[in-house]
């Protein structure tokens, strides 16, 4: 593909809210899914003839399935509190990237077909007929939302644009206009078991390679078990952890933790993926089917616990949705939460004194932490609200002496998306990804300049890939991005393996 030409946004010392520039991102649209990507997911292969009635019927179906939809579509008063909160608006200035305007392209159709006001006074209440132009707008702007939920924090009614985007994408897919990137990936999971389409022999190869590499480096026989029946823990982790940098260093970190704590664990070749792009396209059936593989693997391997690796949306699906999708987990050990995040597991071990970390190993680094959107605003870690902020920071601070937080309006629940979440981590949306990263990169630049930050730790495969790609566009090194468990792994002191 030819390199896309677009100006890289300027990082300002005090971030500014751009003036509205209608249409500046109307050219941004991802590749449309072909029949071969649509049909295995249960969607029509191309735009259906009666698309208008199919779309309206689908909207009606969704309005009856999810309470959020009618409430959110009815309740917005256009107060404007969300208008300057979306990283894609801040990075582009396109007014349709303001959360309320993004909702309105669906809301206007809802009003036209499902409300009395819109049926009789469409112009007055901003109701519009469903036309091809509207479908085009949906396709463009529902693929300029990373479903990060930042807008929902500030809305006085808690309207979450992610829910609207998911509905929009589901309607689009159901009339035959799906997104290639996400749907192709979901197809691979259904067929092979992971996003990369990595078959079992390749997985075995990779894991053996990792065992050799780690043993060579630290002279400790850290194992990467696969399909080990009877192991205590099933680890499901994003498949990027098997290959991509810096993800794989995180996987090595998990393995070191399991090794040192003496926990028997295994990966599964059948469920070799924690990511679940079903959430991104808003489709329950596909999300459930992807999650079901994990339930099946847990039963087949006879494990007692399921632990999830560093991945943002995967953790949201696991923590918030698994119980609905594939619960209850009666066959697992109720002494542990199901699912458990790898950070929760490591944190508990540290609390119990079962792991020893030597922060001096990371003394060459000044580390900051990027709160991933789905972990921050769509899930939790630990027993108390906000544990998703405390636990990863506690882990980093146990493993590094030098930790600095970015500006408070850009962390915790206010965190900015990396710019590549929500099924947008594809090169056909590179301009959007670079521009959407602006708010996070601006905050990062400040701590680099003021505090000498050298590394940014993350707990999400998408964040890690996205930053590795876009940081160089802003003149920062791609190797700044590290996995939290890489820091843990590097600081871990290996003593005689303890048995628990």
């Amino acid at each position, binding site marked *: 593909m030819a390199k896309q030409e677009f100006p890289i946004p300027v990082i300002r010392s005090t971030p500014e809210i751009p003036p509205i520039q209608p249409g500046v991102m109307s050219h941004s649209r991802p590749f449309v899914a072909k029949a071969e990507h649509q049909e295995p997911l249960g969607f029509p292969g191309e735009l259906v003839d009666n698309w208008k009635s199919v779309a309206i019927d689908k909207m009606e179906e969704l309005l009856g399935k999810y309470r959020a939809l009618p409430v959110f579509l009815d309740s917005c*008063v256009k107060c404007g509190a969300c208008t300057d909160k979306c990283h894609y608006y801040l990075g582009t200035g396109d007014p349709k990237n303001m959360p309320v305007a993004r909702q309105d392209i669906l809301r206007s159709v809802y009003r036209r077909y499902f409300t009395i006001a819109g049926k009789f006074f469409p112009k*007055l209440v901003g109701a519009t007929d469903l036309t091809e132009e509207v479908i085009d707008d949906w396709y463009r702007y529902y693929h300029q939302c990373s479903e990060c939920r930042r807008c929902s924090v500030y*809305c006085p009614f808690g309207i979450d644009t992610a829910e609207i985007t998911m509905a929009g994408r589901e309607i689009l897919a159901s009339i035959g206009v799906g997104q290639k990137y996400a749907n192709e990936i979901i197809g691979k999971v259904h067929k092979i078991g992971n996003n990369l389409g990595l078959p079992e022999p390749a997985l075995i190869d990779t894991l053996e390679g990792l065992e050799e590499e780690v043993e060579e480096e630290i002279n400790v026989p850290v194992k990467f078990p696969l399909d080990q029946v009877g192991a205590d823990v099933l680890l499901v982790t994003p498949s990027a952890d098997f290959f991509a940098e810096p993800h794989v260093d995180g996987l090595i970190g998990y393995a070191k933790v399991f090794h040192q704590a003496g926990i028997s664990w295994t990966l599964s070749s059948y469920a070799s993926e924690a990511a679940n792009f079903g959430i991104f396209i808003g489709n329950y059936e596909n999300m459930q089917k992807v999650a079901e593989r994990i339930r099946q693997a847990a039963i087949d391997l006879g494990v007692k616990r399921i632990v999830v690796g560093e991945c943002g949306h995967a953790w949201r699906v696991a923590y*918030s949705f698994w119980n*609905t*999708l594939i619960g209850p987990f009666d066959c697992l050990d109720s002494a542990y939460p199901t699912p458990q995040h790898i950070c929760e597991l490591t944190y508990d071990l540290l609390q119990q004194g079962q792991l020893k970390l030597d922060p001096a190993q990371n003394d060459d680094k000044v580390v900051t932490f990027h709160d991933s959107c789905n972990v921050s605003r769509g899930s939790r870690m630990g027993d108390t*609200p906000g544990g998703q902020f405390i636990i990863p920071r506690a882990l980093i601070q146990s493993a590094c002496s030098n930790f600095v937080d970015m500006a408070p309006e850009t962390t915790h*629940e206010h965190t900015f998306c990396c710019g590549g979440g929500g099924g947008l981590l594809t090169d056909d949306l590179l301009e959007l990804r670079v521009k959407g990263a602006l708010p996070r990169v601006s905050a990062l630049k400040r701590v680099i300049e003021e505090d000498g930050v050298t590394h940014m730790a993350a707990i999400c495969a998408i964040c890690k890939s996205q930053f590795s790609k876009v940081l160089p566009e802003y003149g920062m090194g791609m190797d700044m991005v590290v996995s939290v468990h890489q820091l843990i792994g590097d600081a871990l002191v290996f003593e005689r393996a303890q048995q628990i």
Partner: protein
Amino acid sequence: MILGTVYAFLFLVATICLVVGVALRIIRYSRTPAPLVIPTTPAPTTTGGVVSLMFREVVLFESLFKGSKWTLLFGWLFHFGLVVALLCHLRYFTDPVWRWVEMFQWVGLYGGGVMLFGLLGLWARRFLVDRVRYISAPSDHLMLALLVAIAGSGLAIKYGIHTDIVALKAFTRGMLIFDWQPLPAEPLLLIHLTLVILLMVIFPFSKLLHAPGVFFSPTRTMKDTPREKRHSAPWADEINRSTQR
């Protein structure tokens, strides 16, 4: 007398419209399942926590405090000016006037003005902030115009051209027991009442549904306990069963 009957009838229709319309929406919201747990986290893990959060949200507009201080200021002044004004109007419906309503009347001196100030502030934002201008539909301006006109006509009656409040009270009291009484034929009062009737009729068909809506918003009302408590819906369980081997 005809005027009184007509207005009493209109109020009856408007009340039915408001009550039935809002009830139908509430029934719709409460019957629609929410199988996926989607509170915006960090969220409370207990029912008490959710009640506290909703109280802060509805009374203090906590999210707006994080979101937009100007909108918070004007929005809060408008809503609480409105509440005060409404409570003061109870004196037209109770006889003898409840003691606390009577004691409350002096606050009402300010309620209407505060409400009007808040509304004008909110309206100014629709013109002055380019982002808010972009998202404003004609109905958003008209809604503000309607509320401004209601507040303005009410204040004009209170401070300018007074109405015969004894006759007015006879009308409102009579209306409650379907005993039509004459209504003072004063233009300002009739305008005020007509606009209120209009507002009541529009309520269930407009963005004013945010009032019941906020109590059904899953991101605010759901507890953050998905690992402890399984949520589902018949349609979701049906899909779950279909994929199990």
